[in-house]
């Protein structure tokens, strides 16, 4: 074999080996023998092996006990503990079953058997009610109606009295108090009367009930009984009003401005030319609108300002179309030859959505709370009269934003000044629009009852919105494990939870003012927790960056450590196998 290799190979091997000659003292003559078999190294002493194992072990001990904890501590993100379970149960609507028990005082001094009637009416109401969270409770008021039952507020007072002879049952709502005057017909029949009382009460509170059931249902679809499910059974007439027109309610709900304890109202007069240059808005607001704002004071406060903007042009996409007065009239009077004299400019429905020229009209408010805008627009002389054909008041409402009214000053009048009286129709419209923007029900004629409804509705809304904010926070913390959670978030969350529980308790006991207060607090704290600034800071620090920073060190240091450990383990395994073989 060695002869076959020839002198070339032998020389190569010899030269390769010659480097080690000095140390290993191998003579060139023995070079050939290398290719045939290796000289084995002197056996490793057990002491050496032990020392080596100890060295490797000590390195690993240092890495694991000092290095890793140090790295962990210096790079850890602080995440305050959050009551995740509770948050989730609120978000799912399981934590609180909101109830709205409405207490109705009944004054029936002339009726022979008021208790009996009450019982029947209560039965009828309970039977008809398919949304158990919102229910009416009747109470016969004693002679002294001033008796306060804790703090529970009375939703309405029903006063039964005998009506005129021959007349059917009827009721009257007073616009400024919570009293319902019900006149029963003298031909007293307990069955029809109880049915009438029940349907009256149902009718008055139907809208509120629908709104609240919609609100609660939209937040938590699973637990509370579906509002539309129970509508079919029992064919009495009371049920008809109770059927939920979901689309109608959804439309109403979509208009409502998000709840805030303060609102800023801006009244703007936009005029396409240079006049009118002043208006008595201050006086008009204090006379026509202030009473309403005062009444709403328990729910939200208001600040008011106003402005006049001259030379306000409509945005270019809004082009009113000229429509001459109806042809019939023209046919009769057309011979006078004044085609352009009578007619009007019409705004189409599509135009209304882009009517507000937000690029040019300064409508932004810098207040920290939401602003509601009310605009009176006076068209230019060459575009007058400007009419919205679908609106009898020539006004329209922009959901969650405000209201607009187009004012066509009467021809030939003094255009430079708008008096208080001229502003009255506009402010009346704005008052209605304000109520529907705030979400007050439109139905009962009595303002106090409507405002009470609004309080309950707003409490429900706050409850739902604070809960859903908690739910979002819950999902956020789970979805982004790399964001930090400062302790302030944890405090806010626990304060939200306690406020929510308190609000729920207040609702159950019928103290709606307190519930609103607690709900407001819960919402505020929940928002504070969710929008905590320091939480977002680290979200955009991607993992790849960390790899780029760590790898240059961890790679070269980690590789020898790992290799040494593997080698050592394989040696140990060999030794262990050998020892087992021996056995």
């Amino acid at each position, binding site marked *: 074999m060695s002869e076959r290799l020839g002198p070339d190979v032998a020389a190569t091997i010899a030269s390769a080996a010659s480097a080690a000659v000095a140390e290993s003292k191998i003579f060139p003559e023995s070079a050939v023998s290398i290719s045939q078999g290796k000289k084995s190294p002197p056996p490793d002493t057990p002491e050496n092996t032990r020392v080596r194992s100890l060295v490797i072990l000590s390195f690993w001990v240092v890495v694991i006990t000092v290095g890793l904890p140090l790295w962990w501590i210096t790079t850890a993100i602080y995440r305050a503990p959050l009551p995740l379970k509770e948050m989730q149960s609120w978000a799912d609507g399981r934590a609180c079953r909101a109830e709205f028990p409405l207490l109705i005082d009944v004054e029936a001094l002339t009726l022979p058997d008021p208790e009996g009637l009450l019982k029947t009416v209560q039965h009828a109401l309970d039977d008809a009610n398919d949304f158990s969270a919102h229910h009416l409770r009747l109470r016969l008021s004693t002679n002294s109606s001033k008796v306060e039952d804790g703090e529970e507020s009375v939703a309405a007072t029903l006063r039964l009295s005998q009506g005129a002879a021959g007349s059917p049952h009827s009721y009257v709502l007073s616009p400024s108090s919570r009293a319902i005057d019900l006149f029963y017909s003298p031909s007293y029949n307990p069955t029809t009367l109880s049915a009438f009382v029940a349907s009256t009460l149902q009718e008055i509170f139907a809208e509120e009930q629908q709104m609240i059931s919609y609100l609660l249902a939209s937040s938590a679809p699973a637990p509370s009984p579906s509002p539309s499910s129970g509508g079919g059974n029992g064919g009495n007439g009371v049920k008809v009003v109770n059927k939920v027109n979901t689309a109608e309610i959804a439309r109403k709900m979509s208009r409502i401005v998000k709840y805030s304890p303060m609102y800023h109202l*801006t009244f703007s007069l936009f005029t396409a030319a240079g006049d009118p240059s002043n208006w008595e808005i201050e006086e008009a607001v204090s006379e026509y609108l202030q009473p309403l704002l005062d009444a709403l004071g328990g729910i939200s406060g208001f600040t008011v300002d106003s402005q006049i903007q001259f030379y306000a042009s409509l945005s270019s996409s809004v082009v009113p179309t000229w429509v001459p007065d109806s042809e019939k009239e023209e046919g009769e009077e057309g011979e006078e030859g004044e085609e352009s004299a009578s007619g009007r400019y019409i705004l189409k429905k599509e135009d209304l959505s882009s009517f507000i020229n937000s690029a040019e009209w300064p409508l932004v408010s*810098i207040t920290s709370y939401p602003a509601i805008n009310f605009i009176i627009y006076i068209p230019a002389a060459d575009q007058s009269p400007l009419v919205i054909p679908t609106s009898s008041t020539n006004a329209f409402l922009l959901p969650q934003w405000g209201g607009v009214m187009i004012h066509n000053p009467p021809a030939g009048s003094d255009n430079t000044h708008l008096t208080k009286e001229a502003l009255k129709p506009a402010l009346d419209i704005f008052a209605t629009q304000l109520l529907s923007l705030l979400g007050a029900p439109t139905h009962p004629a009595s303002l106090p009852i409507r405002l009470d409804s609004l309080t309950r509705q707003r409490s429900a809304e706050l409850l739902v919105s604070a809960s859903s904010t908690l739910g979002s926070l819950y999902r956020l913390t789970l979805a982004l494990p790399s964001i930090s959670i400062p302790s302030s978030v944890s405090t806010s969350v626990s304060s939200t939870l306690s406020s929510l529980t308190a609000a729920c308790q207040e609702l159950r006991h019928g103290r709606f003012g307190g519930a609103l207060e607690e709900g407001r607090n819960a919402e505020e704290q929940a928002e504070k927790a969710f929008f905590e600034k320091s939480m977002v800071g680290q979200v955009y620090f991607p993992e790849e960056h960390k790899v780029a920073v760590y790898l*240059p060190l961890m790679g070269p240091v980690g590789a020898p450590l790992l290799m040494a450990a593997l080698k050592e383990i394989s040696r140990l395994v060999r030794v262990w196998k050998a020892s087992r073989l021996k056995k």
Partner: protein
Amino acid sequence: MRLLSWPSITQLLLAPLAVASASDYNDYSENLLLKSLPGNSILASFRFVSNGTFDSHHSVFPRSLAQILQQSQTKELHLKFTLGRWDAEQWGRQVWDGRTAGGTGVELWAWVEAADDSEADARWTTLNNALSGLFCASLNFIDSTRTIRPVMSFQPAGHHSPERLERLHLLHGTLPREPVCTENLTPFLKLLPCKGKAGISSLLDGHRLFDAQWQSMSIDVKPVCEESGKCQLQMEQTVDMVLDVERSLGKKDSPVPKPPPIEQLSCDQEKPYAGGDSCFPLSGVTDLPWSLSEMFGRPVRGSCPLAVVPTEEATHVCVNIAEKRSIFVSQGSEERKRSPELRCFTLHENLDFDIVLPELSPSTNLLLTPPPVYASRSLTGHGQERGGIQAVLNNPSSNSTVEFVYLESLPWFMKPYLHTLSATISGKDDGNIIQDIYYRPALDRKRGTQLEVRLRVPPGETVLLNYEFDKAVLRYTEYPPDANRGFDIAPAIISILDSSSQKSTFSIRTTSLLLSLPTPDFSMPYNVIILTSTVMALAFGSIFNILVRRFVGADEVIGGSLVSKIRGHVMAFVAKKRRAGGDKPKTE
């Protein structure tokens, strides 16, 4: 012929203001002054004054601004947007005593009512953020490092009760780098009741305004009280610009500036190199003809109906030109001559208004009044480490000493040495030039340096104000993210003091400066990480290997490493090839 001097013109124009303030709330007035400057330039100075009440119902006073003032408890506000340099040597005194012009970029100062400094700072931040949104300017970048509290330079211009004055805090901030442009003009026009659609504001157009050699937009809001105690909120908006007639007329023919053919140039034939292909341009030989519609691209579109009815004193448009120059105006306007050089006109409500001035040769200029002080400032020194600043302040008057406050607001990374501050007149300091110094040193990354020096310059003398500074090294995140061109240093503000009342009567700004700082290589942090990591890994690897490896002879290696195995194979292959190659010639 008596030439009308600037102060008297200003007085004439200020007369309507006095009239306006005596009338009812919620009124508005506007006027335009056109003045010819040497070198075929025209100064156009627009002035709009709106009065409003302090409550929340607004008509001509803009609600958006009133709301900001109310939210931030600001009692007096001055906001300036300026572009370019006022060439005092050529154009003389600034209009309105320099009150309406700011330093290059954006300058804002305000008197904020607050109980203490920290509350004032919080309200100042609110004010900056809100104004930033209103004017589409980066005013929100005026933070504590760019805010100073001047002591000697500014006095409130409005009427404040003594009790309130004690609670007012003056804060001043500048953004010398801010490019002023159309997006700032649009919100400015929206504040006007006629919104640039009627009246003199219809002339304002971004293309012409920002094409000017120098332009300044300013907003001053202050409370104005009458003797009877009736107070109202007054906002004065001004737009001043210097237009080059030749350049503006050129726009008419071609939108792109083109060099004129050589035949149309007026050359100085007395120069030795004058000939067919070389020309030393002569300017100011003739006064070029111009009209309003040529200069601004359109005529004035009627008058703003909301402005107060013009009276004998208050007119809409005034033209200040040499007496010799004739002037033609469009129909419907009334002319009122105040003096041979100041001709004023009132606008017709529905008719366009235009002014045409024919050519006049030879050119006749108005006599210019020099400013109280000529000021210029420049950087001295070289290198990346330190530098110096030299301000040259010249008193052109031949008989009166001028006293003024020189205010510098320096960024924290420019660290001046106060002991190097020197003021000399032709190399000597008689110890009488610097009257007073107010100095507030910088804190790194917290606030900038504020230096106020009260100086007195004798008639006809030039003072050199010098000081040296160190350049700080910034952290790499503190450099702006765009291509680095250096850092802008805010213009110095010179407030001329009235000798008796010690109040500022005139103000001048120097130009801004460009300071270059040592710029690092921005990939440095990562390089440092890699390099240190490599060194550490090397050290660790060798120590670790020495500790755990077993060293044996080369012939004692068990199994051999992967590398030596591969080498063995390669060697064998090469040897085989070589032998095959070596055999062939043998067989032949």
